[in-house]
């Protein structure tokens, strides 16, 4: 057959051409996409400086529907600035998922969301990757001076401030008021005292656990560990984030104590899987004497729908410290900042929104309506706020310590801490061996150029 072979191959050849064309087309789109996503990030907004619509990405904070914190704040803002409309985009409740989505979105060149609510540990990472606008270039120093000490420092990277603190969070000691009163025990001021009181009540009252906290291999463990570490006088890195300092006697003291809580039976060994919901559930079911958790713990533990306890049974106090150190112990800073998308087309409007959210009006709403801890110092210490809620009343008495988030490789640094501390808690390594491993991994995380890599 003469032409069969050659004619049969015509179709495949043109198909090959089709394939090449398709690849070239998508390649062209790719190049165009890479090229066009730059720019549009500087200077004033397109359009009027006092009217328009901005998009705010924020995770659900509290409430729902008409009482949703974000809705209430937006309505109050729109009342104060009738010409500016705010569209809410509900972000993920998981902070890591939120970071993934935002990094993809902003890196992909999207101009929305204009403003986003993000974790307090993001400024260095987002600043280094230019995923957030340096606010200090647009706002005066006096603006940043009204926040509680330490919060702005945590939002600074290489001299620029990237986030405006929205509301703050910190660790508290929750305790069973009724049980402490029943056995005539005072609120513990040292960790050792807490351990012995817990043991007493466990045996006398038959309550299952003495003290529950967050020990899973995740960011929350870094928060808890920071509290014990700073109480013992230790640090994670030096002040310039170039050297790791995890192999110190203070760190060993902190880790050894955390492990001893488990071996002495005060804390269940399942604590190595506890995140906030698990620890909260155990305490709210009445199964533990003490709990370390964030500020929402009080309302969660005293609401009938979510807890078996009542207000007469739940007390809140600052965290204890180690014997020989000065009370109170350190509370790790959590909370949420507001960031601006560098591609935003309405920078002036965004700044107006952010400034309003740091105003007394907005901070009062957060504090008095939703029991969130305000970031503006004057509101934190005002008598109205202090008397509104037992947790807010304690806030002026606490001492704060931030996580070592001043390096862009913070996630890798935190991973080095929490995976090894978790291994120590599980008993698979000794505290000194675990901390030595953490020290090694932290050192390589600090010097890595690829964000800490794998």
């Amino acid at each position: 057959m003469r032409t069969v072979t050659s004619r049969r191959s015509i179709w495949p050849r043109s198909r090959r051409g089709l394939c090449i064309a398709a690849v070239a087309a998508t390649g062209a789109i790719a190049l165009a996409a890479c090229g066009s996503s730059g720019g549009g990030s500087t200077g004033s907004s397109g359009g009027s400086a006092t009217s328009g619509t901005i998009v705010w990405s924020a995770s659900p904070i509290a409430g729902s529907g008409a009482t949703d914190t974000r809705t209430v704040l937006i309505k109050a803002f729109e009342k104060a600035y009738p010409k500016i409309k705010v569209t809410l985009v509900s972000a993920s409740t998981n902070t890591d998922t939120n970071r993934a989505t935002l990094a993809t979105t902003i890196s992909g060149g999207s101009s929305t969301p204009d403003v986003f609510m993000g974790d307090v540990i993001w400024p260095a990472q987002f600043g280094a990757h230019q995923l957030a606008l340096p606010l200090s270039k647009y706002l005066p120093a006096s603006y940043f001076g009204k926040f509680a000490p330490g919060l702005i420092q945590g939002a600074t990277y290489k001299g620029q401030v990237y986030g405006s603190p929205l509301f703050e969070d910190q660790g508290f000691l929750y305790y069973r008021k009724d049980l402490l009163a029943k056995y005539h025990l005072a609120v513990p001021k040292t960790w050792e005292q807490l351990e012995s009181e817990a043991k007493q009540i466990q045996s006398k009252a038959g309550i299952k656990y003495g003290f529950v906290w967050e020990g899973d291999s995740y960011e929350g463990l870094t928060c808890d560990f920071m509290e014990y570490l700073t109480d013992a006088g230790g640090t994670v890195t030096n002040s310039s984030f170039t050297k790791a300092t995890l192999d110190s006697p203070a760190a060993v003291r902190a880790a050894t104590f955390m492990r001893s809580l488990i071996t002495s039976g005060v804390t269940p060994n399942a604590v190595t899987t506890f995140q906030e919901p698990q620890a909260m559930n155990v305490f709210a079911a009445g199964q533990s004497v003490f709990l370390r958790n964030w500020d929402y713990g009080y309302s969660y533990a005293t609401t009938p729908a979510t807890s078996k306890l009542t207000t007469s049974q739940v007390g809140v106090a600052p965290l204890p410290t180690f014997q020989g150190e000065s009370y109170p112990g350190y509370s790790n800073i959590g909370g949420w900042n507001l960031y601006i998308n560098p591609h935003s087309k309405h920078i002036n409007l965004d700044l107006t929104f952010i400034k309003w959210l740091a105003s007394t009006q907005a901070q009062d709403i957060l504090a008095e309506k939703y029991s969130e801890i305000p970031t503006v110092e004057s509101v934190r210490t005002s008598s109205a706020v202090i008397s509104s809620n037992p947790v807010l009343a304690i806030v002026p008495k606490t001492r704060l310590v931030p996580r070592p988030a001043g390096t862009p490789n913070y996630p890798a640094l935190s991973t080095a801490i929490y995976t090894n501390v978790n291994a120590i808690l599980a008993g698979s390594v000794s505290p000194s061996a675990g901390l030595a491993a953490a020290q090694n991994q932290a050192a390589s995380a600090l010097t890595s150029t690829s964000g800490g890599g794998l």
Partner: protein
Amino acid sequence: MTTISSAAGQPAVTAAAPPAGRPDVNRRKLARMGWIFAAPALIFVAGVTIFPILYSVVMSLRNVNATGNGFVMTGVTGANYSALIHAAVWRYALGFTIVYTIITVVVELVLGTAIALVLERLTAGRGWMMALLLIPWSMITVINAELWGYIYEGTYGALQAIFQAIGLGHPNILGTSTPAIIGMMVADIWKTTPFVAIIVLAGLVMLPGDIYEAAEIDGASGWYTFWHVTLPLLRPTLALAVMFRVLQAFGLFDLPYVLTGGGPGTATTSLAVLGYDAMFKNLDFGGGAAVATSTALLVLLGCLLSLRTFRVQVGKENT
């Protein structure tokens, strides 16, 4: 003697002798028609997947910095891959993913076949059983992980209560390496065994009854019949199930991410979790792309090595 054709064995349709014209012309016409029919699907798949795959492969070979102005890629370097090979956690994730895949697929195969055998004999209620079977498989993976997380929880989970009741103490399943891995396997097996069972059941159902009669006449026992008659005939069906399960299992992500976060430590960190963390936690897109590309290459290698299975599936019609 009865001839049984199964899914793979059927030879393709060849152009029967047409009323007029040469066989080759018709064959060409049919081939052209084939390309026209297949083209939309193929172009669709290629159009959507080729760009991202190529982009990802390119990313893995460059220094990538995720910035506000897009991915800034500089240089051509194997640094991402060398970091990979030198990272203990990647070697662990590789070994873990392979072992996990092998164990879960084997267990699902055995369990699925057993369930299919039971279902085949069921005369009444088979429809209900099938609907029940497919419910776990149709659950959202994230929800499945949350459910099993609730069951395995160390202080108020159902499993620890049962263990305590029968006197086995207080297990910390998700907090200890090996139990966490086994627990995760159980959650995965529970969810995907129905998939295998249904495929095997389909294969069983179409086996003709007379082969069993013939075996019984010959005096063969049930087990012998199964092992030497049923199983060989099921092989193509099983191969299909195994193939797709292996490919799915290698991409294990949702379950470890939600159930254990890759922990305790890095005990349940699969390759996909590792890649995700590298990309979206550390914002190291080059490293993450390297993980993804190397995973795809390894699976490709594995598939090519087991090419014989593919020949069985695709059949001899190409020869």
